């Protein structure tokens, strides 16, 4: 493979030599050891780690559109490991550690920017909630700092500290290792690496059914023909229910739209990731200069990738409440992604009741940061049929056992998670 580095860049510039394909686009073969349905972050990461960690390369990633067309290519790119529930803390920290080496691992700059995330508290009770989380993080070897109002003001003086603020800023939890990464590069970098290892990435190919041998799943039907596989892994995020239904399965998942927003590009203004505490709202500035931000899901089942106008306005209100200077900045574009929301806000990386069919889904707001850990753990499950210990909690039957993972304590409604 042509290594990417400054030298290669220079030599291509001087010689005018063409760059090779980042990933191949082969025709699907009749059968593979493993077929992964969904060319989003998780599907592609799983492919990469199957090759890298398990030496399995007779693998196809089947994507109905272009790779990265799903949520990996439309999310607000927040990467962090501030989780407090056992099962979540370790998983997301594992992920963050993998993020820290990802550009090198992939030889593709995913621009992990560990600029720090500031989660604001607007009262003493909120600060206690954050303290519990921060203390848990520290006890798990994860960096976290509790800030008082003065310390927060030093970091982000342009935020709403005036007495006019409806909910004054009281303090914050800071994770310095948290930050952002370049979303598309994650999809492309994983794809390039997997492709290089011999894995087939098959775009514009929709899975329309499963090939069955009794209960067992032995392959997929696609718009480009039947493809057999010893093991099949679903990783289709917002379309989890749709694809599972093709196998007759019902999931604890509902599909909701989350909107995202970008402002016109400006010179650096917001140097951290900031999460507002009065309502769900988070913001960072992309390297290109746009403020990238979002709020809560619109709040009702939908597969349309476009949001409702009142929600747009709610999010703008939060932005101005947090950063009053932003009023004069202009919104450049807003879009939506279909999120796989679960009733406890946590995902699934597990076997399904059907032999040889595996599930990765239910990511809610947190699938981007989870991508590397999801990939490693799902790859292990698909390679060995065994749960990875770090993902052992993410089972379909956990709610039946009373072992739900409601990280934010929001209750059993997908639209409130």
């Amino acid at each position, binding site marked *: 493979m042509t290594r*990417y*580095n400054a030298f290669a*860049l*220079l030599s291509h*510039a001087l010689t005018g030599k063409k760059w*090779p*394909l980042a*990933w191949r686009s082969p025709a699907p073969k009749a059968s593979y050891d493993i077929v992964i349905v969904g060319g989003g972050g998780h599907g592609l990461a799983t492919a990469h780690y199957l090759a890298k960690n398990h030496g399995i390369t007779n693998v196809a990633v089947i994507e109905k559109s*272009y790779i*990265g067309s799903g949520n990996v*290519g439309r999310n607000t790119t927040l990467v962090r490991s501030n989780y407090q529930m056992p099962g979540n803390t370790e998983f997301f920290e594992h992920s963050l550690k993998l993020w820290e080496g990802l550009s090198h691992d992939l*030889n593709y*700059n995913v621009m992990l*920017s560990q600029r720090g995330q500031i989660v604001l508290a607007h*009262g003493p*009770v909120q600060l206690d909630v954050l*303290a*519990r989380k921060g*203390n*848990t993080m520290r*006890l*798990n070897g994860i960096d976290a700092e509790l800030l008082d109002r003065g310390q927060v003001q030093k970091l982000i003086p*342009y935020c709403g500290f005036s007495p*006019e603020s409806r909910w*004054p800023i009281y303090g914050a939890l800071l994770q310095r290792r948290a930050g952002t990464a370049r979303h*598309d590069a994650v999809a492309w970098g994983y794809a390039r690496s997997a492709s290089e290892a011999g894995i087939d990435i098959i775009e514009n190919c929709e899975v329309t059914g499963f090939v069955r041998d009794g209960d067992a799943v032995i392959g997929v039907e696609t718009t480009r023909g039947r493809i057999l596989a010893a093991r099949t892994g679903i990783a289709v995020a917002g379309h989890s229910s749709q694809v599972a239904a093709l196998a007759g399965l019902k999931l604890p998942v509902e599909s909701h739209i989350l909107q995202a927003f970008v402002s*016109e*590009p*400006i*010179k*650096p*203004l917001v140097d951290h990731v900031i999460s507002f505490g*009065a309502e769900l709202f988070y913001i960072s*500035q992309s390297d*290109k*200069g746009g403020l990238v931000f979002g709020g809560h899901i619109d709040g009702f089942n939908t597969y349309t*990738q*476009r949001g*409702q106008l*009142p929600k*747009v*306005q709610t999010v703008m*209100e939060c932005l*101005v*409440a947090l950063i*009053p*200077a*932003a*009023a*004069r900045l*202009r*919104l*450049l*574009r*807003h879009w939506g992604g279909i999120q796989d929301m679960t*009733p406890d806000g946590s995902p699934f990386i597990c076997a399904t009741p059907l032999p040889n069919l595996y599930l990765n889904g239910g990511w809610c707001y947190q699938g981007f940061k989870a991508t590397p850990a999801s990939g490693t753990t799902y790859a292990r499950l698909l390679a060995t049929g065994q749960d990875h210990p770090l993902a052992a909690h993410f089972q379909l039957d956990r709610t039946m056992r*009373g072992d739900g993972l*409601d990280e934010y*304590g929001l209750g*059993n409604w997908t639209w409130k998670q």
Partner: protein
Amino acid sequence: MKGFKRLPSGGRIDRAKAISFTLDGKAKQGFAGDTLASALLAGGGGVVGRSFKYHRPRGVMTAGPEEPNALFTLGSGATQEPNIPGTQAELLEGLAARTQNGWPSVGFDVMAINQRFAKLLTAGFYYKTFMGPRKRSWMLYEPFIRKAAGLGEASADPDPARYDTRRAFTEVLVVGSGPAGLAAALAAARAGARVILAEQDSDLGGSLLSEPVGSAGDAWRATAIAELAALPQVTLMTRTTVQGLYDGNTLGLLERRDHLSPDPAKGQARQVFTTLTAQRIVFATGAIERPLVFADNDRPGVMLASSALAYLQRYAVAPSGPALVVTNNDSAYRTAHAFKAAGLQVVVADTRATVDAALTAGLEVETAARLVGVSGAHGVTAARLARADGSFLRALPSTLVAVSGGWSPAVHLTSHTGIKPRWDAATACFLPGGFAATHAACGAVMGQFALGQAIAAGFTAGRDAAAALGHAGNSGALAAPDIQSFGAAGEPLWRMPNPRHRKAFLDFQNDVSDKDVAQAFDEGYRSVEHLKRYTTLGMGTDQGKTSNINALAIMAGLRDVTIPEAGTTTFRPPYTPTAIGALAGRAVGKHFRPIRRSPLHQWQEANGGVFIEAGPWLRCWYYTWAGDSAASAYIKEMELVRRNVGVSDVSYLGKIDVQGPDAPEFLNRVYVNGFAKLPVGKARYGVMLNDDAVALDDGTTTRLSENRFFMTTTTAQAGEVMSWLEFLLETAWPELRVQVTSITDAWGGMAVSGPNARKALELTFPGRDLSSAALPYMGVLEFAVEGVPIRLIRLSFSGELAYEVYTPADYTQDLWEHLLAAAAPLGIKPYGLEALASLRIEKGHVAGLDLDHRNTLDDIGLGKMAGKEKDYIGRAMRFRPKLQAPERWSLVGLELLDAGQKLRGGSILFPQGAELKGHGHGWITSVTWSIELNKYIALALYDGGLKHAGEEIVCAYPLLNETVRAKVVSPHFIDQEGKRLHV
């Protein structure tokens, strides 16, 4: 030489009104009716900006919102506004504009050195480098990249301007006021429909504004506008951009009012955002001209042909030297003829071999010509033409190269709801891909480029829209003006030969050239979406209005597929960048969200109450009589309650009236404990679960009569509980004869607590028997004082002898004042939320974080309350194994063992001797100083719960590097037998 000049006469500017403005601090002049761009062109034009990546000199390229180059920062300080296209900035007195992206100036920009490294800075170069040598190396490079990127600079100070939002409805919305839109609005309005005509420009007329003032075309426009303005059912909105189409025929409209110098102190909004629902929508949004792709096509002086026409006719701005019009279609002849008529020197180069003689009449035209280069770095001086085979044709001195690569209909809005545009081979355009039944489009957006065609289509669309709404009025007829009409028929050739491989730009703002597209193709970023994301094509402030189609045509060529096979990227709102403040409107500062206030709020405000935000409520946190901070005041307030008597506002509690013959059965179902047999005149504490067995809420419910109950809920969950009860009655148990009504607002309440509580009430209600016999614990008395109803319920949150006294909200303050006065001899005083919460911790009542949405009835130590024989919401799910596991956490009390230290909420708990690592065995949910125990105490959830009573544990708070020791005790720190309640 200056490239442009102002003509001595003509145009739609008001020469009587000179306007002064500054550019980079230098004084300049223009006229009312100018835009910043036209004024700068009138002053000579030239370089007005530098490009994003290569810092190439750029000039004004368009006359509309599609402008990619001429971006300015307007104003300074708190009102500084970056990235405003000069074509969109009306020239206002005192306007202070600054150029962007050039240092020390856009004329001489040191970063232009980037052009030398252009070959290194190709598409996506940053994905291939900046990774080493160490893992975190990107963090060293990133600040430089960030600084280099970003266009203008934003202010960090709060925007002092005011914005407003509104909601509106209409029968017919017409978007765009060109000939098609005017015709549509006229037809619909004449038929009797309620019409809104929205136009982004400061003036109505669209492309008709480029007809000479006083001409037949202009007269047609004026007549149409006059007729519309006179019709009462028509609202004309100028400076109003329709920014997005959303579900339910709803659109977002942004109106700009800067030209009125709005004064925020007078409430005047700078911009107003309207959410409009229209029963019918007619899109008459016109089309945006496409540039041509040729060597150095970004030089100042290269301009869209229709924009050159607009500058001439609207602003009386013309090139100071000869003009060259280069086109592949008919529409640019309108520009050429106008130039000719204005006495300007013009040559037309047409890519086509043959052109209709009617078009070329009187013009100097080169057919089958190709534009292969321009000279002049800071302003075009000459252009070179070649023949189709590449051979030299001629060189022409030119200060303006007006180009037309055809038209891209403005299909943005019609695409916002997910309808992909459709390629029309006849016009070589993407047209709207389809419509909802209530939508129509007309004019250039439909590829109807000939004037008569556009007017006829607009008229039909307007008339049909009105008819569909049942308006039977006669629309009459509308003749097109009698002027020469130019269509846009042409050939799909956009890319000129580029033998010397010079830069030929597609996306001017983001510096994406045809070579970048080729590179993206080589690397496999071939889908239009990958192309966009990899090269950033179309991702700038102009959203690719001039670039997308050219780029995708080139990609289609490389992929050897047709243009429709390659497809477009997704159109998303807003159509043009929209001030965030306008979308937020007046929901800023204190008005961000509403404030909820108790009926005692005003009294508290006037009497030393200090407030804290609690959800929407402002709750009285503590009173200054007790101290000047919550931390000091609450202890005095607690002492008052434990030793004497205090009164606290409990109006914040949710209150629900439950009525009907089946009310007892209903309550019996929603509460885990029994309510069916609650006697009249008695109150009972109850807990409700969600279906998943997690505790939803707790509170007391009082049976006022056989069929009527008075329920209270926690403040936080009041809304949830109300909706939940309504949900159950309307969806699960529709047969139950029960009505629930929120009366939270109807009644105010106060808790009178302390050993002297009865005395205080006896002083307040003299003559009333309040003895335990008359009003036992958990009893209720209802009576009236001066005709005012009083509801007195004997129950306690603090653990002391206590009563809740309710009275209708308008009387609450009087009762409160009366009580304070009557019981003054006892020394009664008010106490606030902090003390209330601390008292209940001592008593071991769960609230707040003890009751988050993860805890079950058993977790909070109340499992025994649940009825054994009856069913209740949440029962089935309560018995899931993990929830019943013996090692599951449950409520305990903690007493601090290390004197001089503190217990803190959010601490993680460990058994003594355990390694302080991992998730611990529990956490602290609430903490207070106990005045009875004289130490810090806490409520906590601890694995195994009270099985560990008496054990010493460690509370870790690594965020402050603290660990303290505590003892596990019963959560009921005081009066476990409840003696005080029963005195």
